[in-house]
C-alpha cells in the first residue's frame, strides 16, 4: 500500500500505484482518457497524441507518462478536446476513410472518436492520397487507404519466434505498414483474427468475414467509446 500516490485529474481526487501510466491510473479511477495507438499489453509508444493532457502547463502524452504524487492533470478541457478533435480530423483527411462501406464501421476506434468529439466536417482539406489494397495473402486484406500508422499490429502480432507479421516500409509520404509476404502466407486463422482485432481502424481485414456482425451488435452501436470506463 505504501507506493500509492495521490493525484488529481480535472479536480477529481484520484489514487493509484506510483509509476503507472496516467491512462491506466485514470482508468482505475473511472476516468476515460482517449487513446488510439495505445494497447494493453504493449509498451506505450506515444505515436498518435490523442491522449495528450496538460501537467504543469506542459502537454504530455498520458499513455507514456507515469503518474507521480501530487500531479495535477488537466484532461477534459475545451482546449485539449479541440486538439484531440483536430488529430482525429487530420487522420481522416490524410487517408481515405469511407465509413459507409467499411466493415469496421461501428467497431472502429477512429470513427468512435470522431463521434465522441463530434467531428462533422474536418477543418483541413482532404488529401485523397492514392493508396493500394494488398489482397495477395491468403487470409488477410491490408487496405492502405485506412492505415493510421499506430503500429499496434507491428507491436502485437508476432509468431512463436517473436517475429512481427507487419512492418513499416518506405518513408515520409510513401510510408506504409505492410504484411510480411512469407509470414503472411502461413498465417493461421487465429493470427489473422488477432491482427484484425489489433487494428483500431479497418486497415486489416480477415477475408470473407465482412459484415457478419449485425448492426446493433457492434462495439460502439449503443454507447460511445470510453463509456465502459467507470467506477
Amino acid at each position, binding site marked *: 500500500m505504501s507506493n500509492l500516490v495521490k493525484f488529481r485529474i480535472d479536480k477529481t481526487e484520484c489514487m493509484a500505484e506510483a509509476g503507472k501510466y496516467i491512462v491506466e491510473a485514470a482508468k482505475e479511477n473511472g476516468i476515460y482518457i482517449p487513446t488510439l495507438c495505445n494497447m494493453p499489453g504493449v509498451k506505450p509508444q506515444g505515436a498518435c497524441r490523442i491522449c495528450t493532457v496538460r501537467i504543469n502547463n506542459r502537454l504530455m502524452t498520458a499513455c507514456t507518462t507515469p503518474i507521480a504524487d501530487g500531479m495535477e492533470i488537466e484532461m477534459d478541457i475545451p482546449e485539449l478536446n479541440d486538439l484531440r478533435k483536430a488529430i482525429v480530423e487530420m487522420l481522416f483527411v490524410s487517408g481515405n476513410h469511407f465509413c459507409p462501406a467499411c466493415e469496421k464501421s461501428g467497431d472502429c476506434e477512429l470513427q468512435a472518436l470522431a463521434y465522441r468529439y463530434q467531428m462533422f466536417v474536418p477543418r483541413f482539406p482532404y488529401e485523397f492520397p492514392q493508396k493500394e489494397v494488398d*489482397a495477395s495473402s491468403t487470409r488477410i486484406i491490408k487496405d492502405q487507404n485506412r492505415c493510421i500508422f499506430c503500429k499496434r499490429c507491428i507491436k502485437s502480432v508476432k509468431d512463436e519466434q517473436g517475429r512481427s507479421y507487419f512492418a513499416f516500409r518506405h518513408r515520409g509520404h510513401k510510408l506504409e505498414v505492410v504484411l510480411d509476404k512469407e509470414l503472411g502466407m502461413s498465417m493461421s486463422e487465429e493470427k489473422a483474427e488477432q491482427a484484425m482485432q489489433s487494428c483500431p481502424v479497418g486497415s486489416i481485414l480477415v477475408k*470473407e468475414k*465482412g*459484415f457478419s456482425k449485425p448492426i446493433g451488435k457492434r462495439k460502439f452501436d449503443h454507447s460511445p467509446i470510453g463509456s465502459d470506463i467507470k467506477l
Partner: protein
Amino acid sequence: MSKKITIEPVTRVEGHGKVTIHMDNQGKVYQTRLHIVEFRGFERFVQGRPYWEAPVLVQRLCGICPVSHHLAAAKALDVIVGAGTGEGLTPTGEKMRRLMHYGQIFQSHALHFFHLSSPDFLFGIDADPNIRNVIGVALKHPDLAVQGVMMRKFGQEIIRATAGKKIHGTGAIPGGINKNLSVEERDEFLKGADPLNADKMVSWAQDAVEFFKGYYKANKEFIDNFAHFPSNHLSIVRKDGAMDLYHGVLRAVDAEGKKILHDVDYQEYNKYIEEEVRSWSYMKFPYIKELGQDHGWYRVGPLARLNTCDFIPTPLAQKEFELYKSLTNGKPNSFCLHTHYARLIETLHAAEVIRDLLNDPDLLGDDLVIKGTKQKEGVGLLEAPRGTLFHHYRINDNDQIEMANLIVSTTNNNEPMNRSVNYVAKSIMDGKQEITESMMNAVEVAIRAYDPCLSCATHALGKMPLEIKLYDDNNNLLDAKKSQ
C-alpha cells in the same frame, strides 16, 4: 427556325433529369429527349474492393431503393461464394432476405403513391403546383397523408429489423444474412398497436387500390389515353409463372402477350440483353438482342410485371389482378398511367407476402449462412420497386472485384420513358409557341409514372424548381420559365 425547349430539373422525380424538345420551324415537335445524369461511377470504384463489400457499397447509389441494390449485389455474391443461384440459401437466410425486399417494395411503393403521385390524382395534373404536392395532400386529405406516412414507416421498420438500419443497412451478406428475426420483433409487426401491424397494412393497401379504381372510373378517358403506346415487357417471374419480386427466371412478352424471352436463367442475361450507347445520353439503352435495337426495347416495373406474370400468388392481390387483366381482355396492358394501378396491386401483394412471412417460424432460425465452392463470377437479379435490377460481378484470385456491371431499373426504362415524354410533347406542344404550365405538368406526370431514380440520388421532395428553356436552332434563348 427550329426551337429547342429544355425542362430542367424535373421536380418530384428523384435525382436530376432534363427534357429537351426539339421543334421544327413549323412549331411541330420532331424530337424529344430525356437526358438523365446517370452517374455510373460505382462500377468503376468497386473495382479492387473485396467482394463482400459490394452489397454495402453499391447501395449508396440510391437513398430510396438502397435495399434493392444491397440485395441484388448479395444475390450475385451468393453465386460467387457457391451458395447457389437463388435457391440454395438456408430457409432463414432466404426468408429474411425476402422480408427485407418486400418491406422495401412496400415502403417505396407507398412513398411513390402517396407522396409523389397522389397529388396529381387528388388535385388534377393541371392544378397549381403550390397545392399539388405532398403538403397539399396533408392539408386537404389528412387521413390519406397519415396513411401514406404510416405505410412507409411500416416498410422501413421491416427493413430495420432485417437489415439493421432503415437505410443503408448490412443485413444481406454473401451466402445469407447476418441476423434473424427475434420473437419480439415479429410480434411487434404482427400484433403491433394500431395502425403499425401487418393486418392494417393489408387493409390500407386494399383501400389504396379502391381509391385508384374510383379515380379511374371517373377519369377513364384521361388515364387510358395518356401516353399509351405498345411495348415489350420484361421481368423475372417464379418458375411456375407466378409473380415473384425477389427471385425467378427472366421472361419477356411482346405487346400481344407472346413470350419473347422464355423463362431463361438470368445468370446468362448477357446472352439475351444488349446495351446500346447513344451519343446524346449518359444512360445506356438496353434491348433484347434477338429482336435488335429498334424492336427489342422493353418496359420494366409494375406495369411490365403484371404483363409478364401469369398470376399473383396471394389471394387478395390475385383478385385485383384478375379484375385488372379483364380491362385488357387478358392482353398486355400498355396504358402508361395504369402503372399506378399496377403499383398499388403490387403494394397489396407485398403487404400479404409480409404478413405470410411474419407467420413463418423459419424467420426465427439460427442457420444464417451457407457457402460452397467458390466461383469467379455471379449475377444477381431482382425486381426492384421500379423494375428489374441487374448486378453482375467478377472477382480475381485475391477476392477483389475485377469487373462490375449494373443495369438499374431506370436504365431498363430509358427507351419507354423517352417515348412517353415524346408522346406527351407531341400531343400538347404541336403548333404551340409557348410553354404552358400544363405542358410542364404533363411531362412530369409521364416521367413520374415510371417512378425513376433519375440520377439515383436523394433530394428533398418537391424542392427542386422546374425550369423550361426555349431555344432556337442556333441555341439562342427565346423564352425561359421557372416554377417553384
